[in-house]
């Protein structure tokens, strides 16, 4: 099962590397968004906490513009049936989840790196914690959006529907993630971050389990 999931993941990765549908558009999206933010804030001094909020806004919208790709692409190219004939739903789900996870993690690393580079005021006090939160955040975003991408791939208005469906589901993650990142940035007490990490962790388990159980109904007609 794991090996099949890995094969699906490798297929998506090879396909993405060959066509570069998502990667190029996403990198440009991030650059453009950051440019707009810098343009809008020209001369303003912002606190690290305000910038943390902005970082998550960029992360959320970047995820919203890229993560539906894996399923929508199958639907648009008409290969959904091919994949249904090739692999079990579980293998497909895990493979796509893995692909989305890699995509969102790479994207977030890129966003954070750019943020640190261009935003002088963005100073992180606890890098270990910061990256831990980023990792958990990426995991959560990937697991929540994978199942929703599978849902919207079957709908008519794919692009606009994705953020609409994702936002309410992602809200607990966003709240805990933003809070935890603020703590990592501001360097307040370490133990203050525990509740947020606990919430992030349980959110990831809950949403992944639910998606895992429900994917069959989404994937099979």
């Amino acid at each position: 099962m794991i090996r099949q999931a890995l094969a699906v993941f490798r297929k998506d990765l090879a396909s993405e590397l060959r066509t570069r549908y998502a990667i190029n558009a996403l990198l440009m999206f991030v650059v453009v968004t950051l440019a707009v933010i810098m343009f809008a804030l020209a001369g303003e001094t912002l606190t690290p906490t305000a910038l943390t909020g902005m970082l998550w806004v960029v992360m959320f919208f970047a995820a919203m513009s890229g993560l539906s790709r894996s399923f929508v692409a199958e639907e648009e190219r008409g290969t959904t049936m091919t994949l249904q004939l090739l692999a079990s739903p579980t293998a497909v789900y895990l493979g796509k989840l893995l692909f989305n996870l890699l995509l969102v993690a790479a994207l977030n690393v890129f966003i954070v790196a750019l943020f640190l580079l261009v935003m002088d005021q963005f100073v992180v006090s606890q890098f270990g914690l910061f990256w831990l939160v980023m990792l958990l955040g990426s995991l959560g975003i990937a697991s929540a959006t994978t199942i929703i991408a599978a849902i919207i791939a079957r709908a008519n208005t794919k692009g606009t529907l994705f953020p609409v469906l994702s936002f309410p589901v992602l809200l607990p993650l966003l709240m805990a993630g933003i809070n935890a990142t603020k703590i990592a940035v501001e360097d307040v007490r370490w133990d203050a971050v525990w509740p947020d990490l606990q919430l992030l962790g349980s959110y990831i388990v809950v949403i992944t389990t639910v998606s895992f159980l429900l994917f069959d109904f989404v994937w099979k007609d």
Partner: protein
Amino acid sequence: MWWKILLFFWIAAFSAIGIVTPVAGDLGTVGMYAQMDAAKLLPVKFTVVDRGRAATEEEGGGWLLRGRDSHDREADFRFAERPADLETAEGWLVSARYDTQFHRVEVAEVLGASPAFSFPFIPGLEERAKIIFFHVPMAWMTVIAFLVSMWYGIRYLRKKDMDDDFRSAASAGLGLLFCILGTTTGSLWAKFNWGSFWNWDPRETSIFVLLLVYGAYFALRSAIEIEEKRAALSAVYSIIAAATVPFFVFIMPRLMPGLHPGSADDSNAGPVLSSGGMDTAMRMVLYSMLAGFLVLYGWLMSIQMRLHRIKLRRAESAA
């Protein structure tokens, strides 16, 4: 048939009781306001202990009598003139304030004689406390309709019966209606009582999330043409949403400080759940309204189902 008439009268009657029943304070409230806002007139209910006498010139004239409130506290009440039904009335509901100079209650206006039934006067809420009879049942129905919608969604996934999908969608529609009503009433009320329409109080956040979930649910439904697919996908979405919504609806508002009753910085669990903290009469009206709204929801659901069946039959006979 009979139960629909009963339901109509039930809700109408308890709405009327909720709205019409006067709010009446006692001597405790009058005394409290004397120290804060001496000029403010409050509704006070009392029973007559002593029918009293005409007040002398030094006492300001009028009529003086002795009254007792519901907590067995007594004080002198001065009416500007001899009350009309002095001999028959066992008590009065009056608009009054406490006079700290003469240490007596100054009656400005008689609101009613021999008052029977009243809600307690809650400082800071006053007549506005009555929103609880409407707002709270609406909020409850919002959550209940969502859970019912999810329940029928799960049933659809198990049995693939299109009627279950329709029930799920109908329940979500009613839930959205109650959600909008609850949000609007709450928001208007908040402007008058808390000072702003919206303040991201944890409870406000939770109803906002529910509103988003309902909106997303219908956006998804409208975007899928094949009925079976629409049924399966919207059921899956409502289950996913239900896995994340409890954080907002049941946990966060109780554990975080906020403006709503039942928040973490409150001493009780809110008016509905805690046993104390609410006047018996108000509690009775609130529970009756909750029951009425619940039956109303059930009735609306059955109307929707019947309408659905009629439409199906017409479509069949047309084909």
